Each structure stands twice: as structure tokens, then as C-alpha cells.
């Protein structure tokens, strides 16, 4: 028995040498089980992710959380979703990394090393909500093309860096500036060196917000590789694709940035509402700016069985893109009646807010707890899917968990 394990372990450790990581649960591999794709390292180990995270795509890497994994007020790396468009850059040297400011609307192009950014400009830390524009896509009907995110493509970590506006002021920007667009070091899936996997941006007003930063830290440490090490643009409250990872360039444009995934149907929704499945011309699609109001019940995990007479405590987060959440409610009768939750203020603008409630159930049976946030403009989450759009963005339908009272 021991001998056998020893032999197996020896084989696994040589395997681990090849894979470049320990084979987690390797001792539990049934004999005869073949490891899938030896060339791909374990993504959980490679990116420091929790085993309960869900891999949607492994080339490029796309991984999402489940609601109960997002219970922390400040999202840890291990529960942070990954949405990559290209290949993660290799051989990053933080000491030689440079960011070039150029474009039609800079007075003169200028380059900074990370050290120069750190020394020249004051540092700021904000907790910022980043949600993928396509979070919730899997629910749209007819289905929308792309990664089929459910609810877990959202995070709210703390980001530390320098304000983009401070750097832009130092570079010198012309009055005709309209938009900034980022450029990054990730490479195109096809291997074509001339193609950028993604190069999005934001209008000047968003670029000049105090919370829009060039970050070199996440949660007080170097940014994890999968999340943009060594430098990431963070534009909280907007589709997370506006927060470019591995950033090595900012173009100040005198028109709306036309980089990859800024044009066509990418990160755009119909300017005017359309019927489900309707064809929409590219020129009738408008760029998504702020994300809509939304919330998640992060405790308890869906599927809780409780005893009759017991009260149930729930809690979670609510956010509203550029806006704040003003009201949070729950329903246990499929939206027929709503009860207010207690709701905390955000730690800073663009951070998600915590809500909690204690629920009594009238009798035994199956319940769904529905959560509904309302933003400070009076706009609430819909109970069913919001307006259909060709690419399946902006699904902010209320989150639901299942409970049985026995």
C-alpha cells in the first residue's frame, strides 16, 4: 500500500516538475485517469484562484465566481473573476516597464516608467467595483454570443495607484481631446503581432474623475498577473473592459477611440430598445458607459434548508455603476411584496455597498429570496430580463436564491 503510494507520488512529482506546479489532489487521482492537456497548468494554482471558481474558457482565460464566494466586503484575488481577451503577456519586467502617452490630442508624446509614476504623482487607494459588461449574458433569449457569464463576473477590490488626470496634466492635453484609449501588452489569440486583443477607453470626463487611476497595487500587493500586473487602468463602475490590464500606452484622442472592441457591436447596446432577436445595424449601437444598478445575495449560499420558526439572516452587496444605491429590498413571495434591507454607505464613490436583513418565513415550504436594489435616481433592478440586446450585455435582473423551510 505504502509502496504503491510512494511510486505514485514519485510519478506525480515528476509530473509536477513538467507542469510547473503541484498536482492538487494528485494523490486522489484514480488509477488509469488521464490528466487533461498536460501543457495547460492548473489555472486555480496558476492564478491563485479558489477551486470553486468556474472556468468558462481556457484560451483565452475566463473564470467567474459564484454568489456565495463573493461574500467578502473587499474581494480577494482568489474570488476575482478573470476576463481575458488575448494571451497574458510573458516575461514582464517591472523595472523596464514603460507607459507611453500619445495620440492626436497630446501636446508632445511622453513616456513614464512605473518608478517615475510612483515618485512623481501622489498615490490614491479606492475600493472600485469592476463588472464585466457581459455579466449575466447566459440568461438572454435568444442567446447572445460570447462567454456565458452567469452572475460571478463582478468584483470590488481596493486599487492603489496614481490619478490618470494628474498624469494627463503632466503630459499636456490639447482642448480638442475627446477620449482616451489604452494599449496593452497582451497578445492576439491568432498570434498576429499587428493585432491588439483589446484596446478600449473612456471619454475625457471619466478619464478626469478622481477615482480613475493607473494602479500598481490590488488589495495592498502587486497586482496579480491575470489582473494586469504591473500596471492597470481602473475606471470603476464602467464595463470592466474599460479598465485595461498590462497597460503600456494611453492615446489621447480627438475623436471617440476606435481601438479593438470599441467599434461594431462590442460593448455596445442598441441606442433605442429593440425586440428580442431583432437585427441591429452597427450605426444604431451605442457604447455602454455606466453599468446599471445591481445586487447579489452572497449569504447564505442558495439551497439552504432551515427549520420552521428559525429566522434567516441574509447579506450581500449592491452597486449602481456611476451612481450610488439608495434602497435595497428583498421579497420572499416572488416579488408580490417587498421589505427593506438595511443598507450601508459605500466606503468611497464607485464601491459596492453592503446590505443585510433578517427574514421570518410564514410556513414550511419552498421559497425564493429575491433582491432588488434601487439607485439614487430611482431606477430599480427588473425582476425578469432587461431589454434584449444582440451581445447580451447589462443583465441586471434581480438575484434569486432558493430556501426550504422544513
Amino acid at each position, binding site marked *: 500500500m505504502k509502496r504503491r503510494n510512494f511510486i505514485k507520488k514519485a510519478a506525480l512529482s515528476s509530473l509536477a516538475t513538467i507542469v510547473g506546479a503541484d498536482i492538487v489532489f494528485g494523490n486522489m487521482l484514480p488509477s488509469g485517469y488521464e490528466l487533461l492537456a498536460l501543457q495547460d497548468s492548473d489555472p486555480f494554482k496558476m492564478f491563485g484562484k479558489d477551486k470553486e471558481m468556474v472556468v468558462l474558457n481556457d484560451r483565452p482565460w475566463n473564470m467567474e465566481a459564484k454568489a456565495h464566494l463573493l461574500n467578502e466586503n473587499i474581494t480577494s484575488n482568489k474570488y476575482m473573476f478573470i476576463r481575458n481577451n488575448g494571451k497574458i503577456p510573458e516575461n514582464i519586467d517591472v523595472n523596464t516597464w514603460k507607459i507611453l502617452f500619445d495620440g492626436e490630442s497630446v501636446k508632445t508624446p511622453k513616456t513614464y516608467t512605473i518608478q517615475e509614476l510612483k515618485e512623481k504623482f501622489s498615490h490614491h487607494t479606492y475600493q472600485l467595483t469592476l463588472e464585466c459588461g457581459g455579466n449575466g449574458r447566459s440568461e438572454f433569449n435568444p442567446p447572445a*454570443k460570447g462567454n456565458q457569464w452567469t452572475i460571478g463576473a463582478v468584483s470590488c477590490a481596493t486599487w492603489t495607484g496614481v490619478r490618470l488626470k494628474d498624469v494627463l496634466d503632466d503630459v499636456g492635453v490639447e482642448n480638442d481631446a475627446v477620449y482616451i484609449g489604452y494599449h496593452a501588452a497582451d497578445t492576439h489569440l491568432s498570434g498576429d503581432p499587428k493585432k491588439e486583443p483589446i484596446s478600449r477607453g473612456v471619454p475625457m470626463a471619466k478619464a478626469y474623475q478622481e477615482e480613475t487611476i493607473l494602479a500598481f497595487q490590488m488589495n495592498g500587493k502587486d497586482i496579480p498577473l491575470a489582473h494586469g500586473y504591473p500596471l492597470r487602468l481602473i475606471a470603476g463602475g464602467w464595463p470592466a473592459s474599460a479598465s485595461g490590464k498590462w497597460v503600456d500606452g494611453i492615446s489621447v484622442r480627438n475623436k471617440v477611440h476606435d481601438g479593438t472592441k470599441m467599434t461594431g457591436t462590442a460593448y455596445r447596446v442598441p441606442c433605442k430598445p429593440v425586440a428580442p432577436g431583432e437585427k441591429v445595424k452597427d450605426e444604431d449601437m451605442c457604447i455602454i458607459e455606466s453599468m446599471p444598478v445591481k445586487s447579489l445575495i452572497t449569504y447564505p449560499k442558495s439551497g439552504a434548508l432551515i427549520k420552521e420558526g428559525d429566522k434567516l439572516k441574509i447579506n450581500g452587496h449592491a452597486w449602481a455603476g456611476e451612481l450610488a444605491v439608495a434602497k435595497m429590498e428583498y421579497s420572499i413571495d416572488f416579488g408580490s411584496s417587498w421589505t427593506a434591507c438595511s443598507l450601508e454607505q459605500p466606503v468611497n464613490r464607485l464601491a459596492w455597498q453592503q446590505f443585510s436583513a433578517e427574514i421570518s418565513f410564514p410556513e414550511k415550504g419552498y421559497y425564493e429570496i429575491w433582491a432588488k436594489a434601487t439607485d439614487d435616481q430611482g431606477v430599480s433592478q427588473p425582476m425578469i430580463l432587461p431589454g434584449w440586446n444582440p451581445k447580451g450585455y447589462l443583465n441586471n435582473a434581480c438575484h434569486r*436564491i432558493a430556501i426550504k423551510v422544513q
Partner: protein
Amino acid sequence: MENNKHKDFTDGVLLIYKQFLLIFFSLGLFICALLYVKADPSFSFFRKSENTIAYVVIDEDKIENGIHLSTGLIDAEGLMTVVHNCTNCHSAKLVTQNRMNKERWAETIDWMQEKQNLWDLGTNEEIIINYLVKNYPVEKKGRRQVLTNIEWYELEN
């Protein structure tokens, strides 16, 4: 006479002794074998090749339970055409997550050709689209689905 009798006697004892020895030895061996089988029913100790690196190298074309193991795609007509044309740049997971009709797959292919360096698929385009719509058909989901895949658990207060 006396000597012969004694010799016969000792020979007999020796024979019995040898027979006993053989029986005990075989019994011992048998018990050892039994113990080993109990400890290592798959005889893995003797199959060293199974535990070497070569053993885990996957067979690219292996199909198990109707699934092409290296990509996760359903084994059906057109499978290898899809594998060869649709998994070079991106993972097959991007294919299997999606549900589209013929027209929308065709649009998606056009988009990949325009933006993502996909080559001209020629007559393979029809084979690929037919494979996709047949094996990954569009499901009607309505405006909100019933909650599924609920893992029930006792919540301790």
C-alpha cells in the same frame, strides 16, 4: 537389516519433511500473494509504465461516452472539421458555451474572418455550421428560468 530399517525410516522422515517444507513454502507464497493482491489489487507495482510520464500524454483523438476528450466537443458528423478549424485560436469551451442558429453562426464566422484572422473555410463552413446547430441547438429560455442545480444543505444557525 537393522540398518536398512533405520535407513528406510530416516528416508521416510526426510520425504515427509520435504513434502511438509514444500507445502509450507507454497502456503507461504500463496498467503504472500493474497496479501499483495489485497494491498495492490491492480498490480500497479508491476506496471511501471502506467506511472511514468508517457502514461499521461493524452490521445488527441480519443472519444469516450460520445465526447471528444481533448476538446470536450460532442462526437458527431463534422467533429474533426470543427476541431481543426475552430480550436486553433480559442478554446472549444467558447464553442460549446454558445447556442446559435445557422444564420448567427454564419455571422459569427464572418466576424471572425473580418476581425480575428480566421481563414476562408470553403466547403467546410457548411459542415461546421451543420455540426453546431445539430449538436448545440438553441434552447428557448423565456424571460426568466426556473432556478436549477440547487445543492440543498442544512444551514446551521
